[in-house]
């Protein structure tokens, strides 16, 4: 029942994207959840969150980036250099963090070295690190400027005029994803964490119309689905660095847990609810205010409280705090969270990993197994 989402979460050029390109429509990749996808959609472009799970080496990524850099942008560059992003007509890089922002220069340089590596539309999209009035003004200008670039390159119709319909479509999408969370409740859980994350990842990897339609079908099936087996399985929450690898969740569930919630960039991360208003300004405001990412420095307490609320709401037995190596932002947040969770008596496991195909499977499995074993005895 979730095959289409699983395919979209595992394969960047999945069947729905393939169909989109066959219809002669452009795809633009982006790197960060601060990018207002509605604007791209209104420009007639498919916004596709870039992922790097399909690499089998890092020789290209390592040639441009230094060694002390998160593996995620290195995997993305490897994907670009090996032709796996050839279907993209454009890419937008955002300063989500210092590692990711330098994908801009590294990709451009690789584009000079290897013809065809760089998409014809390539933009850098600045996002402020605070939410003051003047930061909002700056961000609105950036969004407006991006709309202008898209309009010029893709010779699209009126983006502003099309925006209300795109906002409505994405609002509906967020509503559906929220509904999906209702099927993850204790003692009546109808969907595994593996499948739920696949849906979330797919939301950034499929044409939104197709995604909404498929998710509606899934929700309808879940209403009558049998609950997944929960007895004796600790309910986990996963948080930390960007995770689009459903295999990691699979690993946790294969070890005898049920992943009942996520607070990650590709999961139940965004706090953007329904965007009120139809304007570009309202989209910009929602995206600047509405994400819970440690790149917005000085908001640890808000993030912690939001995670604690999710733990309460989802009847969580233990928390996996994971970060990609060299992701100091999530890694340090995890350090603070570990201490705060300990104070509240909530078990947690802090792990550091690499991004990319699950090369560290056995090491992670050993630690996750031990963690699950340690909390299983406390289950009611």
């Amino acid at each position, binding site marked *: 029942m979730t095959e289409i989402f699983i395919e979209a979460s595992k394969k960047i050029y999945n069947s729905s994207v393939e169909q989109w390109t066959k219809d002669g429509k452009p795809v633009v990749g982006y790197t960060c959840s601060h990018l207002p996808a509605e604007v791209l959609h209104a420009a007639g472009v498919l916004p596709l969150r870039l992922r790097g799970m399909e690499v089998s080496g890092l020789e290209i990524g390592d040639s441009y980036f230094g060694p002390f850099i998160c593996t995620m942008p290195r995997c993305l560059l490897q994907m670009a250099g090996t032709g796996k992003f050839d279907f993209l007509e454009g890419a937008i890089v955002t300063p989500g963090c210092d590692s990711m922002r330098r994908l801009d220069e590294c990709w451009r*340089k690789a584009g000079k070295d290897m013809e065809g590596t760089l998409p014809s539309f390539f933009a850098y999209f600045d996002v402020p690190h605070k939410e003051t009035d003047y930061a909002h003004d700056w961000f609105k200008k950036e969004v407006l400027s991006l709309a202008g670039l898209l309009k010029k390159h893709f010779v699209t119709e009126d983006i502003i005029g099309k925006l209300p319909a795109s906002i409505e479509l994405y609002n509906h999408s967020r509503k559906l994803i929220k509904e999906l969370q209702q099927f993850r409740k204790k003692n009546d859980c109808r969907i595994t964490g593996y499948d739920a994350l696949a849906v979330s990842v797919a939301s950034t990897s499929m044409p939104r119309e197709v995604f909404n339609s498929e998710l509606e079908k899934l929700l309808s099936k879940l209403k009558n689905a049998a609950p997944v087996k929960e007895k004796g399985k600790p309910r986990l929450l996963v948080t930390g660095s960007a995770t689009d690898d459903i295999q990691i969740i699979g690993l946790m569930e294969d070890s005898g847990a049920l992943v009942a919630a996520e607070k990650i960039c590709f999961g139940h991360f965004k706090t953007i609810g329904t965007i009120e208003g139809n304007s570009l300004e309202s989209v910009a405001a929602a995206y600047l205010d509405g994400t819970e990412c440690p790149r917005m*420095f000085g908001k640890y307490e808000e993030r912690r409280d939001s995670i604690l609320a999710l733990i309460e709401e989802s009847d969580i037995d233990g928390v996996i705090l994971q970060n990609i190596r060299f992701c100091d932002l999530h890694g340090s947040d995890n350090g603070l969270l570990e201490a705060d969770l300990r104070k509240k008596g909530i078990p947690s496991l802090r792990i550091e990993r690499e991004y990319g195909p699950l090369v560290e499977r056995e090491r992670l499995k050993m630690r996750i197994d031990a963690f699950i074993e340690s909390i299983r005895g406390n289950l009611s």
Partner: protein
Amino acid sequence: MRPETKAYNFDWMLWRTLDLACNAMTGTEKELKIVMRHIPYFKDILDVFLAYGEPGKIFLKLVYEYMDNIMTAHEKGKKICGTTFCFSPAILYAMDTVPVTLELVTVLINSLWKRGIGEFSDFCYEAGLTETSCSSQRGALGAYLAGLGETFDFIVADTPGVCDTNANAFAFASAYLNKPAFALTFPDRLTGDDVDNYHQKDYRRMIDFLEEQTGNRLDTDRLREVLQEIKKQDEILAELEELQRAVPSPLPVTYNFFIYAGRFFFAGKPLLTELLLSMRDIAVTNMQEERCGLPSGKENTRALFCYIDHYTTNLALWSWLEERGITHMGNILSRFWADNTPYNQNRSNAYNIDSTNLDTMIDSLAAQNSRMPMVKSIRGPYDAPGMWLEDTLSLAQMYRADCIIYSGTPGCRNTWGMVKLLARDTEEAGFPTHIMYSDSFDERVESWEATSARLDEFFAVRGLL
């Protein structure tokens, strides 16, 4: 952390050591020789200061006063602000607040602590900060997180988007120590009315924060006093920069360190002016006598450091350069982009000090702060106008550098994301470029012996010596 390390506050020990070092400088030659016998581990570092005569003495006094200000702040009723070298302390001095600049204190620990920053740095990891974070903050921060120093009253940083790892260390400290914090932020571009507008609004918001935290209103006369002193300092710095262009360079290699460390410690304070004047007098004399600033008097080659220097083991980099006849053409830390400096000719990205009224002064400070080291050059794409590549190449050409050297820390995500590209471009422009893989603040990553061997190899292989 070992119990004995926790036995005394680390900043108290630094303070007392510096006091003794200052006293040693005023003793007779015989007394000094005896002192040297008793400090086998630190005699090299004291030697460095002694070797430079008056500037060395003033610099040591300046560092002592910096620590003295910290240690006596609370008893004098002043607030202590934890901050970064990317932030100009001028506004803090204007508001009678005492800065603790983590990176400077980290260098002090490395200079005065036999074991270096190791134990303090590792405590950060115990507290929850990643061990991949930048060692420049972790060194001193570990001690403060462990409660081994004077307590911060609040924190001001300015590196989100400039260096997220730096910004993250301060955000972590704020959450861990439960202290209020303010972070100045910057658009990814440097110039333009909209950019200036952003800088000015954010800076004013920071002043509101400072007023709230200190309980003091920003005093116009005091601010003017500080700015006028900065203007004087900028003029002397411009002279020193001009002198540095000469071949051979009349500036001793440590002057570069004195310039930026002095500015980070004491921007706007008269003692820094005194230091700069003493340096200028010596450099002018050297220039008049057509003498190189190196002790050997012979300049073999000229190296531009495109990022930072190396601060472990008795600050050995400088004596290593001296021994080989390599003059130091500055680094990203030593350029502040005042409008009168030689490297700002025909450039639109400088700041100037206008002390006409409170508004112009605040705008001047906002402009100055937005051009602080790193804040100016690595906030945007490395190859954008006024950014790292353009700055590095124009400085290398202007100062007739024979090579370019990158020294940083593994914690520096931002430069490690682009240094290979920069090195390719600088090599293409004709400058042999060496990337150091060591940690500028933590010798456990790579020993100085290994680092210097690689440097020797670079200079030999590229035929620079």
